[in-house]
Every structure is written in C-alpha cells, then in structure tokens.
C-alpha cells in the first residue's frame, strides 16, 4: 500500500510552527511547534508518535485545518490549508458522536461535507456499507451511549470513512480503550485502511500501535515540539495479526528503536544536537 513511486505527495508540511503567547512576560512565549517538515505520500500511513505535550495532536489538527499555524505552509492535495480541507475524514479521541442521534444517523453526518446531493437510496447504501465495513451493521439503530467505547470508536471511524475521504486524520482513536479492544481495533483498522486508499495520519503515544499500523513513524519531541526522526516500517503487508508480529525479531527491533527515540527525544535542543552526531544503528532506514 505504500506507493513510494507516487508523483505528488498528498500532504506537504514545510517549516511549520506555532507559539502561544504567555501571560508571564518573563518566560516569553511558549513554542508548541517549531520547524516541522514532513511529506506524506498518497496512500501512505504515517503515525505521529511522542510523549504528551510534543505537539502531535496540534500538528494533526493543523493538517485538518482545525488549528491555525504560523509560520510555515501546509499543503493538502496541493492546496494550502487555510480552512478545513475538503474530502477529509477526522476521527476524534473521544469518538465525538452526537448523543441524540443513532449510530446510523451519526455516520450519515460524514456525508454532509460532500457538495453533491445524494438520493435517499444512495445515502442509505453508503451509510450501511460504512457500518458493515467497521462491523456495526447490527447496531445501526442504537444510541451511542448504548454501545461500548470500542463500538463508539468504530462508529466514529465509519463516519470518517463514509464520504470516501482522500485524507484520514486520526487523533489517538484507541487511547481510551482497554488493551484487548484496542488490539482488535488495530487489526481491523489495518485491514480497513488496506481496503480504502486514503492517506492516513495517525496520532498515538503507543509505539506498538504505531509500528503495527504505519508505513512510516514520525517521532516527535517536546520543547519545542518538532519531528526528531522518521523511521520506515518495512514490515510486509498485509499485517493481519498483532500477536503474530509480537514474536518477530525485526518488528521488535523497530519497536525498540522507535521507543528509544521517543524516550530520549526530550531534553534541550543542545542535547538533541549532540545525539544527532551519533551513528545510526545499521538496521534503521532513517
């Protein structure tokens, strides 16, 4: 699914930064993001990984046009992002379903963006197909609070996918789920994303999850938030089972590498500069 030869990248991030003004004048402004550069190819699955406060969610929201950035440029499908781009799907951390709508009605919200007016039958078949895709066909007429947290996230995913988006942005979608549900949903997401051709940006603090799902992992660090490493995850697809991969030596190596980058990514800029002089491990494709 990683079409490395693809001509124009789906998402281009160039020199992007953001700072929040602080009330305390002595400490100056708070730099959330600084000098972020990233190109994401069409159809690629890229995870943004890092500790809390590294700005990974902020970066995702910038791509989705939900948060303003200054300075820098972000292009989605060749267009400069100044408002919310068309044909994107966004999966929120807390599923963000309307409590007053059934699962079916919540998924239909995802079709609102399209300027094309769909007929009743088209809407029905699209929403039903999206619900089938995430395995919620039997729960179409339930209210969100009557289904489990994992099912709510599935519904949120169906809402993001129903409009067949070019770009799928996911903000820690499995962060609040228990370990088993999380593992099952990761496997299903892998197979769902394989069937759609959406370019996906996935924010997580779970390194296993990032390695399992991604074509590339962008490691971010805080103060100021920036991308410190980009690691190719050259595990062949289809990757169907988390458990199969747990015992794989190469997967374990990649995972440990990403984890060490995340854990050592903090500290001052000087420390990071010193670290960059170290020779990279030979098995890294960085």
């Amino acid at each position, binding site marked *: 699914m990683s079409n490395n030869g693809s001509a124009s990248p789906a998402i281009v991030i160039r020199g992007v930064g953001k700072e929040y003004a602080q009330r305390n004048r002595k400490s100056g402004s708070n730099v959330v993001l600084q000098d972020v550069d990233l190109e994401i190819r069409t159809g690629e699955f890229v995870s943004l990984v890092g500790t809390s406060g590294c700005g990974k969610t902020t970066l995702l929201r910038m791509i*989705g046009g*939900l948060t303003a950035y200054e300075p820098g440029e972000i292009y989605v499908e060749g267009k400069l992002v100044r408002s*919310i781009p068309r044909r*994107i*799907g*966004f999966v*929120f*951390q*807390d599923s*963000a379903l*309307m*409590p*007053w*709508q*059934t699962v*079916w*009605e919540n998924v239909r*919200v*995802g079709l*609102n*963006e399209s300027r094309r007016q769909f007929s009743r039958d088209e809407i029905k078949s699209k929403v039903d197909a999206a619900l089938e895709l995430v395995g919620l066909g039997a729960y179409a*007429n*339930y*209210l969100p*609070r*009557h*289904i489990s947290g994992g099912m709510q996230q599935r519904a949120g995913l169906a*809402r993001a996918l129903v*409009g067949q988006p070019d770009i799928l942005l996911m903000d820690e979608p499995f962060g609040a789920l228990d370990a088993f549900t999380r593992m099952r949903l990761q496997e299903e997401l892998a197979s769902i994303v394989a069937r759609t051709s959406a370019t996906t940006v996935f924010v997580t603090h779970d390194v296993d999850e990032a390695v399992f799902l991604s074509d590339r992992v962008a490691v971010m660090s805080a103060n100021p938030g920036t991308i410190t490493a980009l690691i190719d995850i050259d595990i062949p697809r289809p990757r169907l089972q988390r458990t199969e991969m747990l015992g794989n030596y190469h997967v374990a190596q990649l995972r440990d590498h990403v984890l060490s980058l995340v854990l050592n990514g903090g500290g001052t800029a000087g420390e990071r500069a010193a670290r960059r002089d170290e020779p990279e491990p030979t098995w890294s494709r960085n």
Partner: protein
Amino acid sequence: MSHDTAPLPGTAPLSRATAGPIVRRRKRSLSASGPLARWLLPIGSLVVFISIWQLVGGRVDPLLFATPSSVVRALWHMIDSGVLGPAFVTSMEDLAVGYALAVAVGIMVGLLVGRSQVVERVLNPYINFFQATPLIALVPLVVIWFGIGFEARIVVVFMLAVWSILISTAAGVKQTPSSLKEVGRVYKYNWLQSITRIELPNAVPSIFAGLRIALGKALIGMVIAQMEITTTGLGGLVVNYGNAFKTAYLLGAIFTASLVGVVAAVILELIRKWIFPWTVSDESGARPPEIKPGRTLS
C-alpha cells in the same frame, strides 16, 4: 473475611458489630424501593394526612378551616353551577399564551446569548437585573402600559417565565462540547445546521429543566395577574371567595390551580420522553432500546 478462623484480638468484635446492621439495613432499603412500597407509601401518607385534616377540620370553625369533604362538596358545586369551567378556561388561556410566548422568546434569545459572547455581554446586565428584581413589583407598571385586560395578564405570565428559559437555553448551548462543534466544522455544517443539529439538541436537557422551572413561575404569574389586574379566572375566584370568607370554595379554586400545574408538568415530561428519548436516563439492567430513526432529531 477471616474473623471466624483466627481473629486478631480486638478486630473480631468490631467487624461483627458493623457487619450485622449493614446487612439488615440493606434489606430494609430493598423493600422500600419495591413496587408495592413505591405506590403504597405515598398513597398511605395522603390517606393519613387527609384523615387527620378531616378530623381536626371538623372541630374548628368552618370559617377558619375547611374539611376535605367540604372542599370536595364546594368543588362539585362550583362545577355544577358553571363557575369553575369558564374560570378554568380563562386561566388556561392566560397561562398557555403567556407561557408559549416565553418559550419562543426564551429559547430564541437564549440561543443567541449562548452562541455569541457579544450578545451575551450586551444582554447580561438586563438578564441580571430582571433575575434580581422581584418581578411582581412590576405589575402596577404593566397595568400602566398594557391596561387591565388579557394583554396585561399575558405580559405578567411571560415576564415571570421567560428568564429561566432564556438562561437555561443559553447555558445548554454554551456547554456544547467543543469536539461536537468540530465535527460540525469538519463535515461543513452551515450555521443553521450547527444550530439545529448540534447546539439546540445539546441544549435540550437543560432547556427542559428551564421549562419546568418556568412553568411554576408562569403559574404564579397567572394567578397574580388574575388577582391583581383583572379579577377573573382561578385567581379571580380566589379573591372573590376569600373576600366572602368561603374557605372551602377558596381551597377548591387553589387546588384547581395546582392541578393545572401538575398536569402541565406531566405533559412537559411526556413530550421530553416522546420527542427526545435520548434525554431519558436508562434503568439499570434494562435492555438498550433500538431507536426508530424517525423519532430522533434530524
């Protein structure tokens, strides 16, 4: 757990002493929440109260204190002689029109206040003023402006009811979770869609809480208007019977007014359950209901 095998000295008596009453108390509370007790207790309480009232009332001057049986007789006489019917209709008209206006204006302005910080800052002084003012003191002013007829009574009902609706609507709209607003942004809702599909539905539980409070206030406004502005309706009956020292009739009119309030509150609750089923909290262990698509908003 282990105090019957090898208790530490001093701990066993303590645990035994606490374990006993807890179990017994739980049993008692279980029976108090049973279906039999749920109906038996309030009905029994009413029967006892009315019996005592009847017994005491029979021994006191009927001018000061009417018995339940005399109130029932008075009510029957009021219905029979055609006094209560028209009064009831007049009262319901005043209440319904004034309350409906308050609902329409309260929800609309509340929506604006909840959506826009500018509107909120502009209107806040007035909202605070009217919240703090004993509005009944404005009745003479209402008479100066609107005369002594239907309009003035409507204005009083409206004036008392509108503020709770406005404030609770604004609060409900303001509390819309930002993630839901962002869903609206991502999927390109226009302003009308974000009001009707996100902000208003989100405010529904809060609006209904305000509607219930407003109903009580509207009822007060209705009775006061009919006592102070035009002597008519149920409030007018209260004044007339009070002046004539007809205590039983007076109480009959008052009970009719409170019956109106109770019935209106029940209707409000039914509307909430029928049109907005998602606001109804589930009984534990109940099977999750399937919602028919047509019965929810949008």
